[in-house]
């Protein structure tokens, strides 16, 4: 496995373009090839969990001259999230995307997005990170506007403008960092920064990175594009954007850069925690009033990502006791995994409802549990999970975060987190009352359950929701512990430059 690490970007990249040629022969082949690529990637990603950390030198060039690829606990965890959710979304879209034209182009963009995200996660080179980030972003801009109707185009344009600004800010930060340190290799940059210490230039770079990656992660002052962009995309893409993209491009990059390159600092920690708390509260308040199913879920994405940022923020703080910092960080990472699972499940459910009823307005739906039992059951499970009801997975991660904050003396943030969990629950209870239960409108008398290829990913995700909640020690030992230890252990990251 170790020798073939770059295949994580090479397979989706190659298949994206090969698919275009294959689709000229037969559409079915293109469906199958896209599925095959994602399936092989998922298998590889799960296998990566059991590998020891290593560094890969592209082209045989030793660092700091060549491009370095890094495999450690954090990147393995992200690879599993990206590729497994991607596989499920891909299975879902073989049926769902029939209503759109140019399906093979959809696959191309989808696989390009996967290639970009995998690249962001595995790379150990700052400029390479920027390039892969742009690949994923450009593919997602195009995917948001894939429907080519008024709303989709407008959302895509907004997303493009703000994403373009974010990318330039990130590039500016990288350029500034290069002028400070004279290298782009991440471990090398970290070593050089350790020699320089903290000064105004480094602070400026941090501000640029927080603004740029914060825009990609849509923390609250930078969130304006998300509630438009995510609902406008086709449902499997909404699931990918909300479930994976904002994590891989935004939160993962912030965590990697702040922990490993700049090192823990109290100031950055308080800024990130503040942004997290703000997104948490503002997101949930905006979500409560929404009628549009997918739009509500998009606002909840902002709010739930607030929990993740909050946990990571406390983990960055050098002033609290290491055990509590580690606990908060662990909670944040755990919530990241959970959010990927339940939010993509909810978005796929909303797509299934829309596929059969033709509307996204939750007030116009009702009583669907009688007509679409499987979709409704999965939707219920995911809703319970996001509202933090035991024994589903969302409960444990929220509990850990809240516990760590109360214990560390940040009572306000802890109380806010409890309050937001409560508001989330209210919002999802209302959703269930409107959509699943209540009276069935007359025009929905004849609708049927969603097709098998669409319910299969839903069932898998719902089972994952429950399984992660119950078999929590297993997930913990396989994925999360390693990811947490990676982030806290800066010395191990620096040793990648020597080559393992």
């Amino acid at each position, binding site marked *: 496995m170790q020798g073939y690490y770059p295949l994580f970007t090479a397979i989706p990249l190659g298949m994206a373009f090969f698919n275009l040629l294959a689709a000229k022969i037969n559409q079915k082949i293109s469906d199958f090839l896209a599925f095959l690529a994602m399936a092989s990637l998922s298998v590889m990603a799960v296998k990566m969990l059991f590998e020891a950390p290593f560094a890969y030198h592209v082209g045989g060039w030793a660092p700091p001259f060549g491009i370095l690829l890094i495999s450690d606990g954090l990147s393995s965890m992200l690879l599993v999230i990206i590729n497994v959710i991607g596989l499920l979304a891909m299975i879902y879209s073989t049926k769902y995307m029939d209503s759109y034209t140019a399906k093979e182009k959809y696959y191309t963009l989808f696989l390009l997005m996967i290639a970009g995200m995998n690249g962001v996660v595995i790379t150990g080179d700052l*400029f390479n990170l*920027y*390039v892969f980030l*742009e690949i994923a972003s*450009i593919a997602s*801009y*195009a995917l948001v*506007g894939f429907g*080519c*109707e*008024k*709303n989709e*185009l*407008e*959302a*895509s*344009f*907004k997303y*493009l*403008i703000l994403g*373009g*600004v974010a*990318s*330039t800010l990130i*590039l*500016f930060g990288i*350029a500034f960092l*290069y*002028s400070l340190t004279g290298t*782009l290799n991440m471990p090398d940059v970290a070593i050089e920064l350790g020699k320089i210490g903290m000064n105004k230039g480094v602070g400026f770079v941090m501000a640029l990175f927080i603004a740029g990656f914060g825009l990609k992660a849509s923390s609250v002052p930078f969130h*304006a*594009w998300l*509630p*438009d962009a995510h609902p*406008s995309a086709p449902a499997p893409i909404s699931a990918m954007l909300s479930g994976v993209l904002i994590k891989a491009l935004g939160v993962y990059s912030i965590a990697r850069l702040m922990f490993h390159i700049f090192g823990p600092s109290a100031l950055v920690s308080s800024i990130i925690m503040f942004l997290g708390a703000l997104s948490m509260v503002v997101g949930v308040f905006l979500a409560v009033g929404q009628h549009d199913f997918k739009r509500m879920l998009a606002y909840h994405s902002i709010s739930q990502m607030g929990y993740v940022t909050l946990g990571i923020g406390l983990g960055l703080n050098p002033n609290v006791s290491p055990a509590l910092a580690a606990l908060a960080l662990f909670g944040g990472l755990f919530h990241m995994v959970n959010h990927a699972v339940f939010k993509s499940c909810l978005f796929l459910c909303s797509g299934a409802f829309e596929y059969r009823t033709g509307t996204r307005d939750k007030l116009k739906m009702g009583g669907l549990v009688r007509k679409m039992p499987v979709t409704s059951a999965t939707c219920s499970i995911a809703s319970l999970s996001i509202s933090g009801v035991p024994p589903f997975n969302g409960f444990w991660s929220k509990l850990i975060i809240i516990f760590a904050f109360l214990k560390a003396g940040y009572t306000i943030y802890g109380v806010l987190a409890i309050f937001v969990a409560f508001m989330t629950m209210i919002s999802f209870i209302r959703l269930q009352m409107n959509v699943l239960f209540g009276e069935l409108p007359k025009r929905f008398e004849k609708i049927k359950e969603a097709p098998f290829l669409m319910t299969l990913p839903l069932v898998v995700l719902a089972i994952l929701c429950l399984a992660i909640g119950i078999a929590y020690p297993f997930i913990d030992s396989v994925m999360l512990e390693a990811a947490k230890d990676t982030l806290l252990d800066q010395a191990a990251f620096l040793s990648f430059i020597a080559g393992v």
Partner: protein
Amino acid sequence: MTLYFLTMVLFVMGLYCLVAKKNIIKKIIGIVIIEYSINLFLILVGWRKGGIAPILMKGMDQKELVEHSVDPLPQALVLTSIVIGLGVLALMVSICLRLYEKYKTFDMSKINRLKG
């Protein structure tokens, strides 16, 4: 130092264009100006006084080249970032074209079906 300052002026001009103008074509021009100010900044990072182009010609000593040439890495980065900028620009213009088809206007304040 003045040159660095001027790239920042360019950056701020692009940002102003992006924020204040309503026409979406002008917004795109703003994004492009921002992008190019960053590219200029990157080129300046590699610049050195009296530097020569980092190209090895016939009859040139390698050590001499290393001592006198400007830093080639930022130039490679700028090339890559220009290519990426080209891709984004093409996408932006095509979305603009489609927006015009649907809304019959380039005015962003009239393209307001979604309330972010």
